């Protein structure tokens, strides 16, 4: 099998895609947003509890490819308990990495480093970022449906 492909579909990603974490809506969520990737039919809803600047709880539901499911799953694990400023820093680096436009900052990304393989597959960048964009809209509470088209 192609080595780029092995990079893309790492164990962690396959595992998260098959058994996504936080695949549920937190009770008492006060923010939510919906995201679509019309190209491949990914769609998901993110709901979260924002307390001041901190995401106290977060979950998602929806369907999509392995990359988009794993991205949503790992994202929810990562950001739970974090404040928005730190989250934005992580996403900034994550975004650069999957776009192939920046180096991994291991301290920031931690487990998310497994998404580095996406950079070799430009058509899959949207899958890896859909959940993140959707979460940002939930935080901003702007009521927009995110679409990556």
């Amino acid at each position: 099998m192609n080595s780029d492909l092995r990079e893309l579909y790492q164990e962690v990603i396959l595992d998260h895609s098959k058994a996504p974490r936080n695949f549920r809506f937190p009770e008492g969520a006060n923010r939510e947003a919906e995201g679509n990737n019309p190209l491949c039919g990914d769609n998901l809803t993110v709901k979260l509890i924002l307390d001041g600047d901190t995401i106290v709880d977060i979950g998602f539901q929806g369907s999509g490819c392995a990359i988009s499911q794993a991205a949503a799953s790992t994202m929810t694990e990562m950001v739970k308990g974090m404040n928005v400023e730190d989250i934005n820093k992580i996403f900034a680096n994550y975004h650069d990495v999957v776009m192939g436009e920046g180096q991994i900052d291991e301290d920031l990304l931690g487990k998310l480093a497994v998404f580095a393989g996406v950079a070799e597959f430009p058509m899959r960048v949207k899958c890896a970022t859909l959940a993140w964009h959707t979460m940002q809209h939930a935080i901003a509470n702007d009521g927009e449906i995110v679409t990556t088209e």
Partner: protein
Amino acid sequence: MSDFDIEAIRAEFPALHQEVRGKKLVYLDSAATALKPKAVIEAVSQVYERDCGNIHRAVHLPSQRATQGYEGTRKQVQAFLGAEKSSEIIFTSGTTQSINMVAQCYGRPRLSAGDKVLITGLEHHSNIVPWQMVCEQTGAELVVAHIDDNGEVPLERIEQHLKAGGVRIVAFAHVSNALGSVLPAKEICALAKSHDAISVIDGAQAVPHMAPNVTDLGCDFYAFSGHKLYAPTGTGVLYGRFDVMNAMSPYQGGGDMIRSVTFEKTTYAELPNRLEAGTPNIAGVIGMGAALSYLQTLDWAAVQAHEEELFRYADEALREFKGLRRIGTAKHSMGVLSFFLDCAHPHDIGTIVDTEGVALRTGHHCAQPVMKAFGVPATARASLAFYNNRADIDALISSVRTVQEMFS
């Protein structure tokens, strides 16, 4: 298949002879856009290298040559479709524009509240949205003859709608791009006619596999895209029965579609010019002529036998594949094989098989209602042309196996 030398045919298609990610390209996406034979590529280059001229308007030789090539293609398309007059052939930028033209120039001035436009449940967005737009503009209603579980459109469902009354236009795909189903076009046209509705056939997925005879089909309009017929991008055809099309208002205003222009009053030219405003895709149309000439060199009985055999081979291989669901199992199907894996999302399938050189299409295939009908977000789709062979299918199956291994 004695008359059919697949290797000789493959040699004519340069794109087949490339490596993709280190593997030989296996092109199974011809329903999206077909590969082009050398003859087409060379015809386009020759226009740009030699027959540099706009058409219809100049007396100099390069322009005359371009005009002859362009109008020559019109005659070839007329013959290909079995149309009565060459003025029934309008060059467009593709199926999408052809259908929009009928909706706007035939439909918009004639439809009003109480009228209906009938389409089927398997249409491409290009044969849905133009009708939704004209219905919104005129107050007419869009009604749908839905598909059954095999992806067929039972004739009774069409008849039912027609019997209910008010249907002025029946628009349907000759062959479905998402399912491969072949619709009983001749019967549908006859039904439409007997209920005083005009018929519009979206032939985008039919013409790569057959030469439809519009006179025999009895349709009023027939639309297709050049780029799916082994011809350049940015070309398409609208056939319209003369009497019907001649009553249509112009689609766009501009050069070449007028008889005379003053600021006070403009009179329009005859068909076909009236519906071809502005400088057309001259090199593209001449390339389409080259594609039709190339197709004429083939033994079509042999080509069709080869395609059918290959389709059966692929269909059986996919059906035997455990954990795979074939979608679109109409008795009469061609060209397209859609499927779904239990273990993997179509988008992942697409990426993984691409790394093995296999070009598949994954997604909704611009047919979201079909996806909805089958309860899937997307499918993977292999589509065939006469230049495919068994080795292509074997590569497909092997690459799908890789996907399955990865996800289980």
